[in-house]
């Protein structure tokens, strides 16, 4: 069949091009542009090449030191919340009722934390944890624990981790629940006929069938926790000291606090690359994990 050349088709994709340009390409290129220049205000810019990047990636400089310190904090935070939220979400999903009124009830209850705006979540826990008037902080102190998230870095970390678990475990649970619901009843019937124990049903059926949603859950929770800003900012403001200053908080300090646009832009780019690379590696590993090396086809 002969193709009919029709250049008018380009007009039809023009709106998409325009939209993507304004929503992604132009803002991103602005940041790239800033990251290779220096400015002293007055809208005057000077070429700085890869200078900011060199400084950023060298831990001995002031900028590099701050960057790596908050990067490790961020990685530790993400690792901690993932190791808590993923198993917890799976357990909640397994415990949820499969039919009846309980389904609607538990779905609504689980969805509630997800519906609360992030800064409200931060405010709730900021007040909840205060040792003078907060229910949690006051009660802990009355019980004899010396708990004060404003002064003690460990208490601050505990508070934001518990807050994140409270806020986001539901998401993992809901995703896993959807995965569980998609398992045909015949699998459970077959397993019961095969005499499988509860644990065997979990490892042989439920976990493998939940693998795809778990990959999504881990990716979403990693990206979200790695980019966390609002809640710790509202609760601790990055303190005490710099103990809860994550990359995003550092970035805002640099860009808006110190107006170091070049440094902040370089940090943004590196920050974004880290997230993309980690997600890509994780996704590739997880989607290949279930495959044999042998080729498909040639069946018995």
């Amino acid at each position, binding site marked *: 069949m002969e193709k009919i050349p029709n250049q008018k088709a380009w007009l039809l994709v023009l709106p998409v091009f325009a939209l993507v340009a304004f929503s992604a390409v132009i803002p991103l290129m602005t940041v790239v542009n800033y990251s290779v220049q220096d400015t002293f205000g007055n809208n005057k810019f000077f070429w700085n090449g890869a200078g900011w990047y060199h400084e950023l990636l060298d831990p001995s400089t002031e900028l590099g030191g701050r960057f790596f310190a908050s990067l490790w904090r961020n990685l530790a935070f993400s690792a901690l919340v993932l190791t808590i939220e993923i198993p917890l979400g799976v357990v909640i999903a397994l415990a949820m009722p499969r039919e009846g009124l309980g389904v609607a009830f538990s779905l609504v209850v689980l969805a509630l934390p997800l519906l609360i705006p992030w800064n409200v979540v931060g405010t709730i826990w900021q007040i909840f944890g205060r040792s003078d008037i907060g229910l949690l902080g006051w009660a802990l102190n009355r019980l004899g624990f010396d708990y004060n998230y404003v002064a003690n870095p460990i208490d601050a970390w505990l508070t934001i981790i518990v807050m994140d678990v409270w806020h986001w475990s539901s998401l993992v649970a809901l995703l896993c629940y959807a995965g569980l619901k998609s398992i045909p009843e015949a699998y459970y019937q077959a397993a*019961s*006929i*095969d005499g499988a124990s509860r644990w065997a049903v979990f490892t*042989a059926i439920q976990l*493998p*069938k939940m693998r795809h949603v778990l990959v999504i859950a881990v990716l979403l929770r990693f990206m979200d926790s790695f980019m966390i800003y609002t809640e710790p900012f509202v609760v601790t403001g990055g303190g005490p000291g710099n103990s809860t200053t994550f990359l995003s908080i550092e970035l805002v300090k640099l860009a808006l606090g110190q107006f170091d646009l070049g440094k902040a832009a370089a940090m943004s780019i590196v920050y974004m690359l880290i997230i993309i690379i980690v997600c890509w590696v994780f996704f590739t590993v997880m989607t290949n994990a279930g495959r*044999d090396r042998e080729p498909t086809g040639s069946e*018995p």
Partner: protein
Amino acid sequence: MARIDLVDLAHSYNGATADPSTFALKPTSMTWRQGGAYALLGPSGCGKTTLLNIISGIVRPSRGKVLFDDRDVMGLTTQQRNIAQVFQFPVIYDTMTVGENLAFPLKNRGMPRAEVEARVREIAELLDLGPHLARRASRLTADAKQKISLGRGLVRADVAAVLFDEPLTVIDPGLKWELRSKLKVLHRALDLTMIYVTHDQTEALTFADTVVVMHEGNVVQTGTPEELFTRPDHTFVGYFIGSPGMNVLPAEVSDREARVAGHTLGLARSYGAPPAGARIEIGIRPEFVHVSAPAPGLLTARLERIDDLGRSRYARVRVGDLKMAARVPNGMTVGEGEAGLVFDPAHIHVYADSRRCEGKA
């Protein structure tokens, strides 16, 4: 291994208080003997899967009991009943190899490793899965996956019965035949009671010694394929088994005569005066009616079309408003127009309200 008795079993998915005419399974009592190869045959929605799931314990019946060797098993789980069941669509454990899949039911019951391996190897050989034991099961075709499901059903030697719920639905037609013969061989080799649910009469008739035909929640006939063919107890059996199905014609019957569309047919047996008020029909398989040239004394019919089934030809004919099928004798050329129908009186059955009447010789 066990004899299975169903005692006054009935089930409704809307609870025991539902209208009895809506029951998925109407009150049924029957016995499945140890070592039998049974087929449960009927159209979709006739209650055959319900019956199967009641035997295996997946569904709790609204009424009645199931006995395994005279022991009431109603309180037992599927696992305790020691039943194997193969479902319509392949159920395999994705993360396991073919061998691990087959070994799963045995390992769960704590069988020693050496015995598990021997048994898995034996079943895998029977199903031609031997060379694939080490492969990951999730990568196989639907055919091979269903073989694994079959294998898991057959791997335990001590089961009370193996239940198959339309297990060959996803299998290629060519392979279907092969697997069905294989199941028959396995049945002889393993001495297991097998119950095979299907809506395909060929599958049922080739697999089973005893075919149980179900219709709208009732078991309408239990018998050998031969019995179902020559003496259908219910017009539904006549219509459902055989291709083309039995001709069922409204008739007036008295003693040894039947009047159909104004024509009198002689009967081989005497039926006296049939029950008053009942719907009386006669049934005759197309194999036992043949077409000939119109002649006095023969029922005259209008030829509509000829179906050539290869080995035999059947004429679709019309007598007034009645449609029938009749065999066309070999070598006969038939054209358009009218034909006479010759009935074999020995194969005419009389039905009152769809149930066969037993005549007197």
